[in-house]
């Protein structure tokens, strides 16, 4: 493992605390942050306006049809939920694996997870023909004596995603409590003191509290780890359990999870790189962090690539005429450009990550993270749309053409995501302060690996 320290430069408990807390408490608003906030706010407003229009007119405003009954909405859903995986993965897995470098990135990664997963959760509802009845997926004793249909992967989705959201929120909040206490004690105005104080729940860092706290946190991590895997596996079952050629495949769960982390870590970089720059956090989020994230991207990317190969292989190995036709259709059909785009963005280009120079080149990583996210979105589109467009009976084949609303709502949802994130970094400490102190402590103890 590299020798570069996880905290660069000469920092003490106090200075770490002040540095991070002041971003929230004292730092004057930067014009770029303000500009970003306004732009993304406008996009968010459009997003909700579009929803209103969608609800009044119907999903017909999108390009969906028969046979392609699922379009952007489901693709976006899968993509967002994928992005929403990195945070909890970082917090949970890396904690269990004693990866100390997680401490400086887990807080904002978890926030990212929450926002992404939240937005992801919107899409299936927007996608419904009658969204106002979405609550029928919730089991409750109704006057109809009728229940959800438990064999449907969509019901599993509902449970998986809501569980994931709740657990991630708990995990994130529990992690926040000591830092909220810090902000409470450093708050300058009464209001801030009250607000932070309220959410800090009167935390006072007593030894027994810390002991129980760490146990609970570890348990949460232990629970969240399988949860992360389960969520995208279940999402993948929406497809794998279908009989459509291009859906019906056992490779989906692992390959979806890998893809999720792939895009998730890409998003972490997309967020971390500008943040560390604008808020001068280079000493906490060091190149070593970026390097590690890049390595994980490389690894998950290779798993995804394996998934692509395996799909093609099984198609021809199985000699199933429908699978073969589907594969050829992906290669040369009307949506071939998407497929090759996916291969380029997710498989070919990311191979540059083998080079240390690239992994430590901030700009290169940033660009790459965007490429990968584009690639992963295209992959979702490829799976959802091109598979449906040509299934069993040639007579029912058809194409999907996105409409203005398809595209604009996707873009707007991205804007909404960044809006939430921009708010977050000015309201809560984007880096776990107490864990940084702990890290410093261990460093002093010479325990730092």
């Amino acid at each position, binding site marked *: 493992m590299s020798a570069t320290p996880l905290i660069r430069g000469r920092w003490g408990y106090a200075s770490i605390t002040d540095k991070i807390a002041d971003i929230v408490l004292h730092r004057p608003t930067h014009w770029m942050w303000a500009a970003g906030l306004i732009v993304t706010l406008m996009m968010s407003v459009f997003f909700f306006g579009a929803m209103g229009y969608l609800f009044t007119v119907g999903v017909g405003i999108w390009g969906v049809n028969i046979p392609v*009954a699922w379009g952007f909405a489901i693709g976006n859903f899968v993509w967002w939920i994928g992005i929403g995986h990195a945070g909890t993965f970082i917090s949970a897995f890396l904690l269990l694996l004693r990866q100390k470098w997680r401490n400086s990135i887990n807080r904002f990664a978890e926030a990212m997870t929450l926002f992404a997963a939240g937005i992801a959760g919107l899409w299936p509802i927007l996608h419904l023909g*009658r969204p106002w009845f979405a609550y029928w997926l919730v089991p409750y004793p109704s006057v109809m004596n009728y229940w959800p249909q438990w064999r449907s992967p969509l019901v599993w989705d509902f449970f998986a995603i809501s569980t994931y959201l709740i657990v991630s929120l708990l995990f994130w909040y529990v992690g926040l409590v000591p830092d909220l206490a810090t902000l409470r004690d450093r708050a300058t105005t009464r209001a801030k003191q009250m607000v932070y104080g309220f959410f800090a729940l009167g935390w006072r860092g007593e030894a027994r509290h810390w002991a129980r706290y760490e146990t609970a946190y570890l348990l949460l991590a232990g629970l969240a780890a399988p949860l992360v895997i389960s969520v995208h596996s279940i999402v993948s079952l929406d497809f794998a359990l279908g009989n459509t050629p291009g859906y019906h495949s056992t490779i989906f769960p692992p390959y979806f999870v890998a893809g999720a982390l792939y895009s998730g870590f890409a998003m972490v970089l997309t967020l971390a790189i500008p943040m560390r720059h604008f808020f001068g956090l280079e000493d906490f989020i060091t190149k070593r962090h970026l390097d590690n994230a890049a390595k994980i991207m490389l690894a998950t990317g290779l798993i995804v690539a394996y998934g692509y190969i395996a799909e093609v292989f099984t198609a021809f190995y199985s000699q199933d005429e429908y699978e073969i036709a589907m594969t050829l259709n992906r290669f040369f059909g009307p949506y071939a450009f998407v497929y090759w785009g996916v291969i380029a963005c997710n498989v070919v280009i990311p191979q540059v990550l083998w080079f240390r120079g690239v992994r430590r080149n901030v700009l290169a990583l940033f660009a790459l993270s965007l490429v990968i996210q584009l690639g992963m979105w295209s992959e979702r589109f490829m799976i959802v749309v091109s598979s449906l467009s040509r299934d069993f009976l040639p*007579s029912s084949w058809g194409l999907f053409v996105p409409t203005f609303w398809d595209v604009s709502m996707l873009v707007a949802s991205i804007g909404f995501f960044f809006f939430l994130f921009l708010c977050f970094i000015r309201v809560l400490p984007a880096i776990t302060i107490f864990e940084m102190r702990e890290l410093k402590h261990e460093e002093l103890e010479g325990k730092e690996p």
Partner: protein
Amino acid sequence: MNAPLWRDASAGPGRAAGAFDGVADRISQWDGSGEAGAGAFALTRRDFLKLSAAAAALATAGCRGPVEEIVPYVSPRTAAPGVPQFFATAMTLGGAGTGVLVESNMGRPTKIEGNPAHPASLGSAGMYEQAAILELWDPDRSKGITLRGQPATRIALETALFERMEKLGPAHGAGLRILMRYSSSPTLAAQVQALLRRFPAARVHTWEPLHRDHSLAGARLAFGRAAEPVYRFGNADVVVAFDRDFVGEGPGHLRHARDFMDRRRRRESAPPNRLYAFECTPTLAGAIADHREPLAPGALSHALVQLAAALQGGSADHPLVAAAAADLLSHRGGCVIVAGESMPPEAHALVHRLNGQLGGVGQAVEYIEPVQGDIDCTRSLQALASDMEAGTVDTLLILGGNPVYDAAGDVPFRELLARVPLSVHHALRPCETSAACTWHVPQTHFLEHWSDTRAFDGTASIVQPVVAPLYDGISPHEMVAMLLAPIGGTPRDWVRAQWLGASIDAAGEERWRAMLREGVVPDSAARTLQLRARDIDFAPPDTAKAWSLVFRPDQSLHDGEFANNAWLQEIPRTHSKLVWDNAAYLSPASARSLGVESGDRIEIESGHARLVAPVWILPGQPDDTITLALGNGRTRAGRVGNGVGFDAYPLRTAASPWSRTGANVRKVTGEHVFATTQNHAEMDGRDPVRRLNVPEAEGLREKPLEDEPPPETLYPEWKYDSYRWAMVVDLTSCIGCNACTIACQAENNIPTVGKEEVRRGREMHWIRVDRYYEGSHGKPRTHFQPVPCMQCENAPCEVVCPVGATVHDSEGINVQIYNRCVGTRFCSNNCPYKVRRFNFLHYTRRDGEPPLDARNPQVTLRMRGIMEKCNYCLQRITRARIETEREGRRIRDGEVVTACQAACPTLAITFGDLSDSRSAVSQAKRSPLDYTLLRELNTRPRTSYHAKVLNPNPDVLPPGSGGG
């Protein structure tokens, strides 16, 4: 049964209230009309009840029952509010009547089906008959009399006409002209005679755009008198068709299809019949033919001449003609040659002679008086035109029809009308012609008036109204009566008198009731004429080199009168699968030579007329011919039909109504966007349609098509302890006519979605007819396959629905619970047959959708965001179940008939209960030809198919002949 019927039929004013009760949550008290309220309830969610303005107008108009007694079709049920009743009547199209049964719910006609007792129907109904219900409810119908576009009163009209008649009286009516369409109504004929007796100098003209001048002229050539052939395809082992789509169009086509397919299905007794089709534009007859040869119009005549020669013992250099000749000769007495209207009169004469020579006459073909009379429309219209030109026409009464739009291109009818001082247009809807006339008089729909009509074989039917005129319509008989000296009685009396004389005796009354009840006048079929065709020599001109244009009626719009009918507009044309459009059909080769693709535009110039039309490449179209469908491009059809497609009439001349040679064609810039319901035409080796030839079919007796047991499953078999509904579709019998699709649309309140939505792939038909090509693009073999829901026992759609909105019921039907559906569309993704339809938008609120009153009250109207699909006409099953349960017995085989099954002219669809091993469907399932679609997926469909069996001549191997 007077009182109850009368009550039931007259449950009207209440009904209007009823429809609104839905909103106001009140019910009206008039007998049964409360049910209408309940109907409106059951029928729709509350928000559906906010009717479109037009529909509201209708609802307020309400439907009073006709004032006279009308007699329902023999119905197993006792009349009660909420129980539909059936009335027999007849629809006239192109002068020939087809018997129909009209389902009436609380006095509101909601569906039209065939009348089993009627020779032209035998229980089946075509697209036009069924879609006529939408014509009745069309909000664009004329709402009142207009004088130069301004509302006028009936009094005003009557006075105007009366004065006119007074004025014309001295001149014996010189200057009075009536322009009619083909009519086979004895009553109307009698009225016209009376009129001519009063005004000897008056003239009656006839114009039917899809006239039968050629065949009538041919008969005159052959027999020296007009006659019409009546075919008995049941007696024909070999049929040779020259551009004659005898199963798809023209008087009696339903009957022809039935006879032909009955004969073909009877494989056991006799060898199946064989059909040779020499035709230009691909038609249904061509699709079911064992051998089809695409030929340009000129070449067709030559082929016929060759055939004649070959039959004379000469030789034919066209191999298929030779084969056909040989086949005909070896089946003397059991064969027939049929020729289409597009063939020249000489060709018809020649065919008559050949049929006589082959002994077909008396067997497969008989001759009768033309039911619409001996009329030459072309001459008749030209005569009228020249008189209008000369200004000798003073008063012109146009009884139906739309000559301004559909007169031949070289008859400038609009301009000529301007020279007529008083012109009265009497039609269902305001149209191009009414705009050019002084008066427009709303006509009653045939469901609103009394009349009579004759079928293709002369059988007469009484047309009885099942609902009082929705608007102040005037029936044709009343219209003519206005010109006559005032006579007593009502149209009903006139019609009755026509058939029973003035006598009101009990016997007569009983006969009258029987006529109305059965829908046919007993033994009224025309007696056959004994005719011998004389020799005529037919030397067709050399086939033209340049492009030849072919004019055909639009498969959905007929001559254009159905242009405002959304159901018909959205029915895919059988071969091109185009909707809401017509196109210039080109063969692939011709398209290549012109350098055009489907969607490109070409300019066609012929004579003085020129036209720009979008191209659609149609496999099976002969090279160097362009087929143009008439009936599109209406400008004053109504909200639905305006500006759909292009108008081809201007290119058509009186002299050459069906084809023209020597047209100039060039590609012009611009793209046209077509909407088609099927994007991929080949089967890609997946063989959804299994084909075999007779010998192979015989072989199946030992080894059925599907002899291995169904694939293994991990799950225990689900036990079905009561009825097990199932369906079999026989692909041999299916002629691809779309009757099932319309029937389903009418029965199940299926909305239309419009061109743009179809283009997006959002059509709603529950049963679609897939069309596949096989073999070369130039001369493909065409296969049709109706695809409803397969009602899989292991339904993939059900497993993925998160809210259990689609589940199996205990009788094995895969039901869709609309009020539970949230619209995830997962079920559609998981349906390998893609038979599920989704309301992406609020289609039932579209403009042009029928009003609530026209809907089937037994079926929920679906709002947006809901999935829907075929459910084996659940409402019909339920009705039967409730009735039989009340009687404490099981449903008998054949007691439940699905809408598609009822409509099918060839009985291709069998439906019934599998738990009864003697039921028709159980027997069908045991046939060696039975197979299920995508069996390897182990969805265990309840709907299965019988492979398509063809009977090609072993001596010829046509391109792309079938092979399982």
